[in-house]
């Protein structure tokens, strides 16, 4: 007789009793109630609204796409967004247009106008595929060209302001539009109106489309009642796992930085819902925070500031700060994106996890694939594949190098430049480009190292790795990414600040 195994996350989706229960009306209700309770404990703002949406998804799985449309658009109007309406209002007012926009509801005409223009372009690319052979490339050139014109052309201020507003709004939808442009050439393409229901979806209304475009979403949707039940149970499981990871994250923050209580305080101020859970969680951690700490490291940013001003911490301490901050960062990415994927699964879309065991990566390329899957997939879809399929077919090594650099270097850089368009609004195109020089170097190094990792992987894949190599591989990989994160912080005056911290890791400096 086998002993029952203790698991941090129960294998609900493999238990036939749970699968059967999740297909009944009370079972569905119970599942959503349990999920909502966990969302509340996770301090998710608007957890109650998400719960209403999930109830609708559970009650009418066959009307999933309609519910998704309604949920996304209602959430856009009442939930948090990255549209920066206060900055948009400032642009209008400084151009002499007395239009103050406080929320997405007031800004809805602008959102609709932006999507109407995007829809017109998508329609054009669908109607004239021969004349518009590379619609994503044309869109990118158009976007960058408009940035240049708005930065430097001697136009009336009202027109410049209008252009910036359009670009900042389009910037939010940019990669969603790119997915539609790609998918509209598929024989089974969904209509634009249906795809718009997934633009800035309620489960994560940010610039990275989770999980990719509508075509992908359709491929992973649960087709039967049983599949739907299993998919939802997997969602619940992932949310439970996210809860554990969040606990590890706070524990690690507490051990390394002695700041878990402070973190909770900050969340408490930010978050208006879920106060009770926060109160007890925060109080518990604040009590522990009052105890003597094992270590009380400064945060990465403070250590970097100290190095930048010529007063670095001892090198051993800097290593401790870097390693602990990197570990906390990985935990943070994992639990936040697990919550997103859990909600997607509760809606009946069986999406893969965004972060999957990154600490097990044996190569730099593998880590890139495991740590932020949907960002990597975006770069692969729009930069890697198109380059790989078109150029240097007769020269395999060069072909792989150029395609990898197109994605991990150029695509990565372009993504962040478009995402942080407000830098361009404030500084102008070329000054903003210069301000990104640290990220330019970061993505250049990353691209080259991913290429080398893939190239080396091909060479050694036939050989068996020794035991020591197998153990050392993840250490090498994590060490590389840990050092590289020093250069992710590109909002500094110059790369010399990042370099100062890098050098302060070594005793000779």
């Amino acid at each position, binding site marked *: 007789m086998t002993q029952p195994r203790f698991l941090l996350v129960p294998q609900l989706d493999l238990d036939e009793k749970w699968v059967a229960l999740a297909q009944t009306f009370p079972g569905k209700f119970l599942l959503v109630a349990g999920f909502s309770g966990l969302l509340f404990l996770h301090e998710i703002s608007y957890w109650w609204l998400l719960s209403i949406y999930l109830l609708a998804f559970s009650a009418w799985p066959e009307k999933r796409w309609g519910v998704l449309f309604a949920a996304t658009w209602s959430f856009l109007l009442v939930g948090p967004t990255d549209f920066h309406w206060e900055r948009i209002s400032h642009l209008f007012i400084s151009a002499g247009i007395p239009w103050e926009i406080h929320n997405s509801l007031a800004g809805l005409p602008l959102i609709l106008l932006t999507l109407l223009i995007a829809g017109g372009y998508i329609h054009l690319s669908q109607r004239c595929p021969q004349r518009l052979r590379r619609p994503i490339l044309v869109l990118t050139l158009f976007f960058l060209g408009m940035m240049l014109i708005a930065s430097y052309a001697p136009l009336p201020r009202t027109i410049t302001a209008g252009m910036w507003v359009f670009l900042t709004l389009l910037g939010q939808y940019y990669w969603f539009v790119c997915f539609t442009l790609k*998918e509209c050439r598929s024989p089974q393409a969904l209509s634009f109106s249906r795809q718009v229901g997934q633009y800035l979806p309620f489960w994560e209304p940010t610039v990275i489309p989770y999980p990719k475009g509508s075509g992908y979403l359709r491929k992973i949707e649960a087709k039967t009642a049983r599949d739907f039940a299993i998919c939802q149970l997997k969602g619940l499981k992932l949310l439970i796992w996210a809860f554990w990871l969040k606990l590890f994250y706070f524990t690690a923050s507490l051990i390394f930085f002695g700041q878990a209580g402070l973190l909770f305080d900050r969340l408490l101020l930010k978050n208006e819902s879920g106060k009770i859970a926060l109160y007890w969680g925060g109080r518990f951690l604040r009590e522990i925070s009052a105890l003597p700490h094992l270590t009380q490291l400064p945060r990465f940013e403070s250590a970097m500031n100290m190095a930048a001003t010529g007063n670095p911490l001892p090198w051993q301490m800097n290593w401790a700060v870097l390693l602990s901050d990197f570990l906390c960062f990985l935990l943070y990415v994992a639990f936040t994106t697990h919550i997103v994927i859990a909600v997607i699964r509760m809606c009946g879309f069986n999406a893969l996890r965004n972060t999957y065991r990154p600490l097990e990566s044996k190569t730099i390329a593998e880590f890139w694939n495991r740590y932020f899957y949907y960002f990597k997939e975006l770069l692969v879809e729009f930069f890697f594949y198109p380059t790989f399929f078109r150029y240097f077919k007769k020269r395999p090594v060069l072909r792989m190098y150029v395609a990898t650099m197109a994605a991990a270097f150029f695509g990565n850089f372009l993504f962040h430049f478009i995402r942080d368009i407000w830098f361009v609004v404030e500084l102008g195109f070329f000054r903003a480009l210069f301000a990104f020089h640290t990220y330019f170097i970061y993505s250049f190094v990353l691209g080259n190292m991913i290429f080398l990792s893939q190239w080396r992987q091909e060479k050694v894949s036939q050989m068996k790795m020794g035991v020591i190599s197998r153990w050392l591989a993840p250490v090498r990989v994590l060490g590389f990414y840990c050092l590289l994160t020093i250069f992710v912080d590109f909002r500094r005056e110059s790369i010399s600040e990042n370099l100062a911290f890098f050098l302060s890791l070594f005793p000779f400096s």
Partner: protein
Amino acid sequence: MSREIAINDFIHRLLTEHGYDEKVDRADSLILSGVLDSLAVIHLVVFLEEQFGIDFSDIYFDQTSFDSIEKISEFVKNHQPSSS
């Protein structure tokens, strides 16, 4: 049939290299299930270019078209130059 055998052999070799040792049937999901990643897709693309002369530069490409041995075989059937 020889087409599917060649694809089947290649996929199994690819899976072994990826450390996946479970049996895969012709309809089993490879991409959507996360068994194979985009780098594996690239190896598959190079194999299909060399083995079947497929030119991917003008094809609508969706990596989920390679989700199973069955689908890859269907893809090759539709895009192999000699079959057009």
